[in-house]
């Protein structure tokens, strides 16, 4: 009886099983065959494409699996497909990454850990049980710690890994402490049961406030929100650039998925929300204001510190902190529109941020430097690269006709709609601030001549294809944005949310 139901549930769990299988297969291939880099990366690609295809039949399914541990719903499917697109992109990036050339003998472990990290993100996006959530987060984090220090011959890579582990351990510890108090208060780890207890029983304010502060530390660490961001610049700068890209896009998205699902399922009054037609916060503490303050801090600190950066990897790290702040605006407003706008922004952010990192990687491959001065005169030396970078940067700023504008538009519109006027205003102000440092790179590329003679940067056809694949959506979604908006609106359907 029990085994039968488990077997039936496994049908919906195929994508995760495929990823686990790919993980084991890559490790075995690395251990027992001579196949090194191309073999294992091909396996990763095959595995992720197979997982992608197997996610597709679960679109539209709404089901709780394994005794309420995870949910299969449109929200989870969105994030699964999102992290798979990232995984495929990063695998293709890795083939061109100069930093990884020195560690080709270890590439089996590299790809295996990437796949394990994606599996962790799958579970993070679909967990509806606190134990499951913590395990998923640890799976993602542990893989990320190792990958950040993957080029261990480089001193800053080891430093990045160690810093990441230390910060991560403290953040998980605090998160677990918060969860233990929450369990003590409500007697359950299931999101829906906790929600039920919170709605029925009058619980005192102080412990609940503490619980949410502690949980926010854990979530904030994952999405690198200020003041839990201090690991981000060092890790992003020290890690191999492919991993930096993966962390800044996929890992952040999974963090948002976890955060949104938790607040949506636990902290919303289910009965009153149905009557009112929109989400009504449940707790005696104003967690929306708490998140709003976090959003403003994250945007402002990220943008202000980015102004002074000379290293592009570090600059993009601070810019990614600021982008987490923008996305938090959507979470704060917490309407359906707000959540949908976060999803729209994530899709847009995927293309533009991966694009910007790809350009930095290509330039670093050829010149061995990520300093802003190496970009001087890039416009005349390598026009395609410079123009692509300009488009990505304009999109990151949020200027039309790029996709970044649409993403920001939806976020701020959602905030205005939910009457968070000051938050939207500060968001716009921050975008103007961000313009300064993005334009500084563009100015260096086109208006400054390089002092020393630098070789022209010629692109391989693979790099051109990858750049094109990221460039086209960044431009096209700036004009034809209705498909992503529609997908986002369909993807906010969550199991257990009326």
């Amino acid at each position, binding site marked *: 009886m*029990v085994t039968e139901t*488990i077997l039936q549930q496994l049908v919906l769990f195929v994508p995760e099983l495929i990823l*686990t299988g790919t*993980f084991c297969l890559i*490790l075995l291939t690395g251990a027992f065959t001579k196949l090194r880099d191309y073999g294992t990366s091909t396996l990763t690609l095959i595995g992720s494409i197979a997982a992608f295809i197997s996610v597709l039949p679960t679109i539209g399914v709404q089901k709780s*699996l*394994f*005794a309420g*541990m*995870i949910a299969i719903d449109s929200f989870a499917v969105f994030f699964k497909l999102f992290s798979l697109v990232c995984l495929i992109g990063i695998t293709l990036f890795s083939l061109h990454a100069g930093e990884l050339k*020195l560690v080709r*003998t*270890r590439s089996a*472990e590299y790809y*295996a*850990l990437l796949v*394990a990290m994606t*599996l962790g993100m799958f*579970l993070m996006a679909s967990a509806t*049980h606190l*134990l*499951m959530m913590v*395990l*998923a987060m*640890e*799976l993602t984090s*542990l*893989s990320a*710690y*190792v990958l950040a*220090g*993957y080029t*261990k*011959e480089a001193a800053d890579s080891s430093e990045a*890994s160690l810093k990441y582990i230390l910060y991560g351990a403290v953040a998980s510890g605090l998160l677990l*402490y918060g969860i233990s*108090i929450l369990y*003590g*208060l*409500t*007697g359950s780890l299931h999101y829906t049961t906790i929600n039920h*207890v919170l709605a029925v029983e009058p619980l*005192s304010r*102080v*412990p609940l406030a*503490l619980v949410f502060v502690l949980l926010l530390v854990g979530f904030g660490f994952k999405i690198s929100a200020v003041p839990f961001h201090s690991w981000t610049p060092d890790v992003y700068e020290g890690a191999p650039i492919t991993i930096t890209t993966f962390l800044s896009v996929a890992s952040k998205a999974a963090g948002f998925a976890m955060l949104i699902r938790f607040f949506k399922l636990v902290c919303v009054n289910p009965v009153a929300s149905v009557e009112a037609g929109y989400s009504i916060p449940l707790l005696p503490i104003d967690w929306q204001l708490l998140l709003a303050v976090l959003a403003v801090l994250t945007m402002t600190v990220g943008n202000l510190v980015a102004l002074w950066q000379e290293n592009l990897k570090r600059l993009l790290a601070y810019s990614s902190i600021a982008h987490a702040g923008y996305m938090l605006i959507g979470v704060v407003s917490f309407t359906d529109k707000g959540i949908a706008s976060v999803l729209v922004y994530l899709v847009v952010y995927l293309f533009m941020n991966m694009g910007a990192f790809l350009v930095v990687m290509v330039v670093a491959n050829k010149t061995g430097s990520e300093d802003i001065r190496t970009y001087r005169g890039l416009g005349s030396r390598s026009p395609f690269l410079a123009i692509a970078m300009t488009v990505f940067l304009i999109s990151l700023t949020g200027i039309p006709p790029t996709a970044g504008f649409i993403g920001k538009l939806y976020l701020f519109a959602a905030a205005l709609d939910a009457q968070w006027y000051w938050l939207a205003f500060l968001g716009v102000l921050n975008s103007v601030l961000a313009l300064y440092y993005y334009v500084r790179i563009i100015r260096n590329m086109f208006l400054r001549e390089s002092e020393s003679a630098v070789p022209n940067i010629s692109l391989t056809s693979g790099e051109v294809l990858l750049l094109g694949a990221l460039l086209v959506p960044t431009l096209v979604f700036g004009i034809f944005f209705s498909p992503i908006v529609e997908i986002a609106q369909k993807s906010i359907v969550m199991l257990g949310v009326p």
Partner: protein
Amino acid sequence: MMRESIDVYTVLFYFFVSITLVSACVVVFSRHIVRSAFALLFTFFGVAALYVYLFADFLAITQLLVYVGGILVLILFGVMLTNKQINVDIKTGTLHIVPAIILAAAIGGTLVGIAWSNPWMVLPTSSSVKTTAPQIGELLLTTYLLPFEVASMVLMVALVGAVVIARREKNKKETTRDS
């Protein structure tokens, strides 16, 4: 008679608590790494005893087997085999003492205050339970099947990661020559 036996339990309970706390302090404050490692033995033992008080017999045995029998021995081996470290003072300097004390006192005070004053949810317990192992086994293969399996993935990743970080490179000379 009844009264007396309760007292014995209570006295023993405080005995185990004090063992745990004192040895934990030694672990943290001792500057001698071998002394810390041996003090950890008593901490693990004390925690195992506390599990017995919580009717978690299986957990207590596992604590003894895995932590005292396995992990602690591994730690001691690690310390002994890297023989340079036995007599070397570990760097345990403290920075920013005043802010740290204030922060720790504030957080500690809040946590203790909440633990003390909060009305915790008390779940009904069944007194008929004799041993917990069968129920744990059943739950691990039904309700908690997925976390159980995912935990194995987490451990696998940790193993692979540890190997990747610790492995000595054979082609070190080649790579340095290339670069």
